[in-house]
């Protein structure tokens, strides 16, 4: 479904991604692991078109998408939940969803607002509240819901459990498991436990390069790899 081939992404002169390659097959849940500054967010932003790789190819469902603007990529089936969530403060919960909703006939929607409110009853209660006033966990739920109403086939989640209470992390994990039945998912994290539970495969990034790929179990059973490339949870 998604093939990233040797991409190099820069911020000005700083060479953030130095040849990242990875693949996500339809139906998979894949995790991108790495420490602070390893390039996880930059990889997701490159796929989403928020930053453009200077070299390399990104192929989504058979079509090259590198260099396309983010709104084009969003309309062609990829959604990103950024690590800082970026809820529109000043818009209500409902308005946050409304502006993101894909324009298509209601019959062709997988994520109508009713279904979103079914899946996230908490958001239904908060629907008229200013998005800027939500708690961290509520914002994360809204950010995921906002991504879903764009009707993605591939969902990118950037550190979805970062800074959240254990209860919320559990809820997010359960949500990822449920979404995985219908949506392909690529998410990032700094440590192993969450990935082990919810992803089938993983990549480890270090200084803008992929240094490991394979099953999460292998990583778990290899303290040296964890020590060298990851944060201890």
């Amino acid at each position: 479904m998604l093939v990233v081939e040797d991409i190099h992404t820069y911020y000005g002169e700083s060479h953030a991604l130095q040849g990242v390659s990875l693949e996500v097959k339809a139906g998979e849940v894949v995790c991108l692991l790495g420490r602070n500054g390893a390039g996880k967010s930059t990889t997701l932003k490159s796929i989403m078109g928020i930053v453009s790789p200077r070299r390399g190819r990104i192929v989504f469902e058979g079509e090259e998408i590198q260099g396309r603007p983010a709104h084009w990529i969003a309309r062609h089936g990829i959604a990103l939940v950024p690590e800082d969530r970026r809820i529109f403060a000043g818009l209500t919960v409902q308005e946050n969803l409304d502006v993101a909703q894909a324009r298509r006939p209601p019959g062709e929607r997988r994520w109508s607002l009713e279904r979103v409110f079914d899946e996230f009853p908490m958001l239904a209660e908060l629907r008229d509240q200013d998005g800027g006033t939500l708690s961290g966990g509520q914002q994360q739920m809204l950010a995921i819901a906002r991504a879903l109403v764009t009707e993605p086939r591939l969902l990118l989640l950037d550190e979805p459990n970062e800074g959240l209470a254990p209860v919320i992390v559990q809820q997010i994990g359960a949500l990822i498991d449920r979404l995985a039945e219908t949506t392909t998912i690529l998410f990032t994290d700094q440590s192993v436990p969450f990935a082990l539970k919810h992803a089938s495969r993983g990549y480890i990034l270090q200084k803008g390069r992929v240094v490991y790929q394979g099953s999460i179990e292998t990583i778990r059973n290899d303290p040296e790899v964890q020590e060298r490339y990851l944060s201890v949870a």
Partner: protein
Amino acid sequence: MESFLAALLNGLEIGLLLFVIAVGLNIIFGVLGVINFAHGGLYMLGAYLTYTLVSRGGLPFWPALLLAPLAVAILAIVLERLVLRHVYGRHVTDSLLLTFALLLIIDDAVRMIWGSGIQVVTPPPGLRGATSALGFSYPVYSFFVMGVAIAVMAALWLFFTRTRAGRVIRAAAIDRDMAQTIGINVPLVITGVFALGAWMAALAGVVAAPMRAINPGMGDRIIIDSFIVVVIGGLGSFPGTLAGALVLGMIYAFGGRFLPELNLVLPYIGMALVLLLRPQGLMGRRTG
């Protein structure tokens, strides 16, 4: 009492018209991050086009009210696509210099096309003369100006709160990158917003044409007033823009009537007071 009421009405009229202009400036800043000096020029073009269509072309006033703002909005689309687009994301001084240059170019173009004298447009029949409905005599046309401004204000409010397009513009103003990430075509939104702001400035120019002296300095004058409005009211705030516009309108109206010697400096005194006492403006949000 009469002169107090007349000044109050006059302040309302000046303030409401200023609101229509300054709110466009404010929306453009919110979405583009550009302080648009050329806004005053677009207002002036609205007035001059009305002069050409009505006083020269013999057209009635009403089609001019439709055509002139439309023409200016189309010009704005061309300007945004060809010129402005190149300075987004650069330092704010770049866009300041660029739009200031555009204002100077519009000023000179106006002098070349229409000359530097004062031009006049007469109000449409039915809106001429004065009415004594309130117990004292006041120009009928002034009530029309207030009506148009209030209609624009109401329409804007409905647009931004009740329509999807309005909410999309608000989202793009809050976080451009995130808006793009959820599928909003932000470059298109930007063009639309610039055209909308230009349309409002030109509409104000058309409406002002029959009551103000049309001259090549009117754009500079109005852009300064709009900046004062934004400073008083606060950048990025709708209610603030209305408050700032009404305050400035009242300063002009009451100052002109009761303190004519100070009339020219009063607006600046007001602006300085706000800057000293409440730098974010009456209703603006405090920023870092």
